[in-house]
């Protein structure tokens, strides 16, 4: 059981000769094992800055991030151990895998670096990971990324994130580059793994529909501030904040569209 706590985090960037940009403004939330938090907001709202701070690619200007009550070490073995606990799945499965290396190499590396299993069990663990993400090990293990489809590549990226047996997974738009027909498969896979391994998941997206179905709680971010936070259905179906309402109104929703007989905003008719 792990808890990741983001406590009063702000991030201010100094722009060269152009003042300051507040990317995050006093953001606080927690993720527990087995819980999925959806983080939604439009481009530039600060979603990815949160991901960067959680992975320690950026340090907060003020505030802190705590894992199980302890602050993130700034360097050394402590930082490496933190990063083993928190792993990321990136948006673009075409860019996040190294085209020069085989799938085996991609999965062996975290196993070796984090000494997850004894050396002679590495191969078996790689195969187990591939099975975990519903791939047939023999069909993909010796291939390189370009030989796989986008959905398969994203499954590899998920397997790689799981290799270090993390407690928390940060998924930044994990399905937005994938074809619609396979998006659901990947999301369902993430949901299964989350349940089976008791992972805490931060699901970063601007797709309100999947955020609603895939998350326990949703956090709405606007210009670096949390404007609304609550149970997924409450936030999406009964949004209180004007910005959340605006986001909801802009999201395609055939149900509502065909329910209202009159011409709809932004529709053709």
């Amino acid at each position, binding site marked *: 059981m792990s808890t990741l706590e983001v406590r009063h985090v702000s991030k201010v960037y100094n722009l060269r000769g152009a003042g300051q940009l507040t990317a995050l403004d006093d953001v606080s939330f927690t993720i527990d094992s087995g819980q999925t938090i959806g983080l939604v907001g439009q*481009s530039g709202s600060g979603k990815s800055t949160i991901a960067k701070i959680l992975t320690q690619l950026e340090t907060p200007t003020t505030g802190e991030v705590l894992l199980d009550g302890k602050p993130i070490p700034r360097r050394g073995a402590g930082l490496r151990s933190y990063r083993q606990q928190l792993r990321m799945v990136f948006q673009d499965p075409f860019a996040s895998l190294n085209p020069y290396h085989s799938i085996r190499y991609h999965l062996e590396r975290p196993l070796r670096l984090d000494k997850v299993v004894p050396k002679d069990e590495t191969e078996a663990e790689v195969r187990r990971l591939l099975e975990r993400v519903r791939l047939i090990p023999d069909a993909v293990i010796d291939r390189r990324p370009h030989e796989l489809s986008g959905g398969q590549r994203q499954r590899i990226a998920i397997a790689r994130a799981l290799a270090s047996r993390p407690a928390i997974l940060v998924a930044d738009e994990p399905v937005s580059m994938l074809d619609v027909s396979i998006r659901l498969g990947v999301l369902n896979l993430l949901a299964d793994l989350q349940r089976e391994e008791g992972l805490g998941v931060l699901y970063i997206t601007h797709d309100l*529909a999947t955020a609603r179905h895939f998350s326990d709680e949703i956090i709405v971010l606007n210009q670096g501030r949390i404007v609304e936070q609550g149970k997924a259905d409450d936030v999406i179906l009964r949004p209180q904040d004007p910005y959340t309402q605006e986001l909801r109104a802009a999201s395609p929703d055939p149900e509502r569209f065909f329910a209202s007989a009159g011409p709809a905003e932004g529709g*053709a008719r």
Partner: protein
Amino acid sequence: MTDPLLSVRDFSVVYDVDPPVAAVKNVMLELQRGEILGLAGESGCGKTTLAYGIQRLLKAPAVITGGSVVFHDADGEDIDVNSLGVEAMRRFRWDKVSMVFQGAMNALNPVATIGSQLEDVFEVHRPGMNRKQRRDAVAELLEIVKVGAQRARSFPHELSGGMRQRVMIAMALALRPQLMVMDEPTTALDVLVQREILRQISQLRREFGFSVIFITHDLPLLLEISDRIAIMREGEIVELQTAEGIWRDPQDEYTKTLLSSFPRLTGEKGVVVR
């Protein structure tokens, strides 16, 4: 009453590789004047090949193996697209049918200003226009798509993704075509910007009366903006009917599968198993 703009009959495209791939198979399609037709289907179903094929934009190894595409010009002439010569084809493209490409945000030349790229269209297709007329036309276009005439001197990287997409729409609108083919025009944009662009497309369509073939795999979005929707699978149109019909009464099993693969924003049917 029907007033067709484009009649596609028995249209087939094969990618002549080993083994040959039949990408588009005997497609029949009649596009009405002023209509927004949605074209949906998953990656590799042939929707982009079809859209390129009707403008003869395909390159080898793609081969149009059969069928006809007839464009019913507003001045009454019927143009058989397949039989146009090189020069006639060059004039036909962009003048009658224009295109907003997939990833259009990155389709602009990074080292030329927006204005000069828009002027290129007039330089090539309207050689009679002088510099002042071209500049005025560009300014007008940028106003129409609400980017603003003063942006003509900006470079693409100085504009946001949504603004770049509007510039691409301005470019497609430049010669007042009768048909605009839009291939995933809003896919990379966030929901608020996407909604604004869609509003603008609807509004421009009302104002200028062009038809749109709108290609995307985002079915919920397509349902909201299209008059009719064609569902493609493995090179064939498996269903073609009004957007409302597709939503309320889908006939084809594949259409039903596609509809059920979308998490609903407000509906109760959650498809994500939790």
